[in-house]
Structure formats: structure tokens, C-alpha cells
């Protein structure tokens, strides 16, 4: 593939996530999706750029804002949308929901709902890779809101002490729900703490998918070749609220509009247009529209999980409770 074709492939993933999330928001507003729904709109370049730098056998783990990473890793829009609809054809059989996307086949080891609680798990999958010597690495994503909680510290401390092949990616989207970073962290630079762990770090504006891929690539190489962790801070922005119930009154519409002008997805599109790929872009966009419409239809028409799944997914085998 040419560089442009590679870029187009990344654009396709980002656009698929964007359109998936927009349709999910619509379905949520129509009452088709229950519970919480946290959208990845604005942050697509981080997940897509990171996955582009990984091998398919590497592990990824993330927060409850997990649809984007799952799609980037290769989960179909059908499987993802069906999970949001709570259908048995969903990635977690409709038992997990928006916050708990799992796709073991693609080594996407979950979305987690307790802020920071998944960071030690990522150190653990990296531990297993080192224990086995299988050459896999783990990338874990979390928000800057998680940077304050104890598990974040303990996971990084252990990963550095035990030299585990893991990359910690802080997706700093500036708001911990409705609280801006300056009211949650005394030090603005999340990577400043890396020195305290003796860990390598990198901090950058995730304004282009290529930037993310290149920067993550170095950290991934460090994990794979030297078996050492890295703390990354990818500065990004989410255009929607924290969840669907968030009216976003803690920031001005102007701020959001200004950020949208720097949208990495639009930048990739502009780059590709300038390179003369207009027709290919149109074909990709059209295919994505079909894929999303098909996913919604699939989710609508799929069956719900039956009660027989409940005990079978709580323990292996039956026993007297």
C-alpha cells in the first residue's frame, strides 16, 4: 500500500468510529440504548493511531469510553451496536453494555467502569507476556481523571519496578467528567510523575493520527525490545459530554467550536483531499454509511440474551450456591 492508502485506511477507521458514535447517540436519544453511553467523538485519532502501531497479538485495555478502541481493533460495527442494544449478538452477549466491550479474538481485553481499576490489569497482562516470553506488549488507555486514583500509581509503580512491557496512554481530554484538569491535578503535565517511577515518558498533542502512531510506535518498541514501560500523555478533546446525560455547562460552546476546528479526523480528510483521493474518500464514506445502517438494522433485529446465560457466565459449571 502507498502512504496515502495507509492514511486512507486510518481515516476509514476514524470515520467509522465517528459515524458509529453519532448513530449510537441517536439510538440512545430514541431509548434504544440503556444505561450510560460515553462517546469517543473527537478522540478517534488516539485509539486508531495506537492500534496502527501495534501487532494484532498485542493486548489493549481501556476505560468505559471503549467503542472506538474496539472498532479500531477490528470488532465489527454489527457486534458493537448489538452490544449497545443489549442483544445476544453483541460482543459481550448483551451482558456487558456500552462500558464493557470485550473482544478476546482481537485481544481487546475490555472496557472497565471503575476509573483506574483497569490499569493494574494491564500491568498484569504485560506481566503474563513477560512470564511466558511471548513477545506481546500491552497498551492501556485512561483519562487524565484516572491519574489521581491510587490504582494508577500502583500499576505504574509495579510496572516500572518489575520492568513490564506495557504502555500507559493517558488520553487527556481536559475534563474529568465536568471538572477541568486545573481543578483535579496540581501538576498539569501528567507525565511529570514518570520520573518518580524511573519510567520513560512522552507528551504530545494528538492532533493527527500519524503523530499518535509515530509516538506510540517508539513506546511500543521500548516495551517490546527492552521490556520497559512508558507513560504517554496524548492531549486530545472530546466534543460531546462526558456521557449522554451531560449538558456540558462547564465549558463554553465557543471552546468546543474552536477545538472542532482542530479535529484530527478533518485534518486527515483534508490531507487526503489535497493528495487527490477525493473519489476514494467518497467511496469510503458511502461504504461506512452502509456499514452503520446495516449495524443498526442488525442490532434492531437481533434476539435478546436469555436467562440461561446468567449462571453460565458467573461460574464455570453449576454448583449449589
Amino acid at each position: 500500500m502507498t502512504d496515502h492508502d495507509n492514511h486512507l485506511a486510518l481515516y476509514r477507521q476514524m470515520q467509522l468510529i465517528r459515524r458509529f458514535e453519532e448513530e449510537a447517540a441517536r439510538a440512545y436519544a430514541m431509548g434504544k440504548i440503556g444505561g450510560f453511553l460515553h462517546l469517543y467523538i473527537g478522540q478517534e485519532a488516539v485509539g486508531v493511531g495506537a492500534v496502527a502501531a501495534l501487532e494484532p497479538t498485542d493486548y489493549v485495555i481501556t476505560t468505559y469510553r471503549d467503542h472506538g478502541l474496539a472498532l479500531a481493533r477490528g470488532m465489527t460495527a454489527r457486534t458493537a451496536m448489538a452490544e449497545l442494544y443489549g442483544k445476544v449478538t453483541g460482543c459481550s452477549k448483551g451482558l456487558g453494555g456500552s462500558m464493557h466491550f470485550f473482544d478476546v479474538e482481537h485481544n481487546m481485553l475490555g472496557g472497565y467502569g471503575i476509573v483506574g481499576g483497569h490499569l493494574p490489569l494491564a500491568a498484569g497482562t504485560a506481566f503474563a507476556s513477560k512470564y511466558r516470553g511471548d513477545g506481546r506488549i500491552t497498551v492501556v488507555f485512561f483519562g487524565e481523571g484516572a491519574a489521581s486514583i491510587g490504582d494508577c500509581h500502583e500499576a505504574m509503580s509495579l510496572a516500572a519496578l518489575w520492568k513490564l512491557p506495557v504502555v500507559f496512554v493517558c488520553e487527556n481530554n481536559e475534563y474529568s467528567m465536568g471538572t477541568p484538569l486545573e481543578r483535579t491535578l496540581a501538576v498539569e503535565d501528567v507525565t511529570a510523575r514518570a520520573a518518580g517511577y524511573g519510567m520513560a515518558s512522552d507528551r504530545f498533542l494528538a492532533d493527527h493520527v500519524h503523530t499518535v502512531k509515530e509516538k506510540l510506535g517508539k513506546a511500543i518498541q521500548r516495551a517490546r525490545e527492552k521490556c520497559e514501560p512508558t507513560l504517554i500523555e496524548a492531549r486530545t478533546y472530546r466534543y460531546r459530554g462526558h456521557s449522554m446525560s451531560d449538558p456540558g455547562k462547564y465549558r463554553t460552546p465557543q471552546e468546543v467550536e474552536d477545538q472542532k476546528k482542530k479535529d484530527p479526523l478533518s485534518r486527515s480528510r483534508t490531507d487526503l483531499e489535497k493528495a487527490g483521493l477525493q473519489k476514494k474518500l467518497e467511496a469510503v464514506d458511502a461504504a461506512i454509511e452502509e456499514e452503520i445502517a446495516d449495524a443498526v438494522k442488525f442490532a434492531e433485529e437481533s434476539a435478546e440474551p436469555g436467562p440461561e446465560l446468567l449462571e453460565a457466565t458467573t461460574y464455570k459449571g453449576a454448583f449449589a450456591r
Partner: protein
Amino acid sequence: MSATESAQDEKAKPADDKPKEVRFREAIRLGMSEEMERDDRVFIVGEEVGHYQGAYKVTEGMLEKFGSKRVIDAPITESGFTGVAIGAAMVGLRPIVEYMTWNFSAVAFDQILNNAAKLRQMSGGQLNVPIVFRAPNGSAKQVGSQHSHSMEHFYAQIPGLKVVAPSTCEDAKGLIKSAIRDDDPVLYMESETLYSLKGTVSDDPDFLVPFGKARIAREGTDVTIISWSRMVHVSLEAAAALERDGISAEVIDLRSLRPLDEEALVNSVKKTHRAVIAYEGWPYGGVGAEIVDRIQRLAFDDLDAPIERVTTKDVPMPYNAKLEQLVIPQAAGVVEAVKRVSYRSV
């Protein structure tokens, strides 16, 4: 807190055809070592498990035997190393996590509750967590308010977890081996006061004690005393005293709190028509209250008296030795409860 006495005197004395006599801590160690020899996915992680040889000497000699790859000293990061072990289990390793005491698992509670117990279900059955958490549990001797919890009551409530609490050396070995071979998270409750208990254990590398099967520690006809862990021994002491008063007590050692052997409870109560549950832990809710519910539902017509519970008093554990003994359930309290349900003067 500090470790108990050295385990110097505990070296195995293999007799040609007699069962091996060991101490409780060694029974656990033998079970873990056999499973580590059998399966190289099994490793142990915790504070002081390696170079220090175990805060209570349960892992003594294991670092030397298995090396630092598989016997891993962790810094004081209960939540961190619990999560690391769960993550390793998610992708196929079989960790044993040792807490210095179960009290310290409280800071790892989220990892156990939200990750270990739930991963199988929230992943729609794609993942499972084959992991063992083990530590001494309950009261020790004057270790005070923060080091005396009976944590089984918190954990046994959670679907996705299994909870076992042996009282004998044989069960200690057989249950730890079953726990390590299990494909779901198992919480294994020890007792500091039992570590030096002597008993025989099987040499058979495939000797396993199944979960959900209670043991009749003493047969009797007049009353059923239900217990687990250290309190089985206190219950046996009470049963001996009751025998002198002409009451024949059956003592059931549950061994496994989840799964729970309902059948053993019902069968015994059908015979004795009276039940007393003796355990460490506060009286509000908990495993004892669960057992009361089971018996009254499943054997209501067989009961000749209300079921009584002999528990830790409903206060935090005091340091003062006399007050501590007042708060911890005692044999005398079990005897009194048995006499009350037998309508005999106390």
C-alpha cells in the same frame, strides 16, 4: 504485626507407609508446591513471600525451590498486585495471591469485587479468572481493631467468587490444591492461630478436597453445631464439655462457605432438630445469617427450637486481652447456646 515462630521444627518426616504429619502452614505449602510442580502457569505473589520466607512462614523455602520468577515479592500495593494477578489470570496464568492478612485485602476490594468476580460475566463468557487469594483471617492474639476482621462475610456474598476455610491439615492441603485447579476465583481463608496445628496429610499428588462438601468433625444426635476454620476447634471443645452434661453434639465443619453444602446441614438438623452456628464475624448479616435462612427454609418442620448464632460481639475488636476474649466467641458461649436451644438450664 509480626510473624509467628520459626518453622524450623516442621520439616516433613516421611514415614514409609504412614500418612505424613505436618503443621497446618506446611500443609498449605505442600499443596501449593505440588501444584507449582504440576503446572508452570502457577506462581505466587505477595508481600514478604520470597526472601523473608513468608510473614507467617507459609511460603518458607519456596523462593529457593521455584526461583524469583514464580515466587514474587511485591511492594505494599495490595490493590496493585491483586490487579496484576487478575490481569495475568485473564490471559491464562494461574496466580496465587498471598495477603499478609485478609484485613489488607480491604484496599484491594475493588479489584476482587469488580474485576475478579465479574470478568466472566461482563465479557459474555469470553474471559475467566483462575486465581487463588489466600491469607490468615479472623482474630489472632491482641492484634487490635484493624487486624482482626473476618473477611469471609464480605466476600461470600459476591457471585463469581468461591470461599473456603479449612480447619484441619488434610483439608488445608486438599482445598488449596482444588483452589489452584479451579477455573474461577477462590478465596482461601487461613487462621494465624491454626498455623502450628499438627495433622496428617495425604502424599497423593492428586488428593483433592472438593468444594461444597462439609465434613462431620464429630458425630452426635442431640444438636448440630455448625462452624468453620478456627471455630471448629472451639466447637469441638464445646462438644466435649456438652458430652459431660449428657448432650450429644454433632459438629459440622463447613470447609466451604460458597458453595455451601445445604444437604449436609439439612441432614444433620433432621437428625438433631436443633442448630447452633459458631463462627468469628459480626452478628449483623454474614455467612451465619445465611445458614440460618437455609435451615429454616429447608428444614423448618424438623426444628424443635430457634437456631442460635454464637458470633464475635457487635463491636470493633479491642486490644485489651480480657476484652478481646470477651468479644471473640468462646466454647462456653457455644455450650450456653446449645443448652438454650435444648431448653436445658444454663
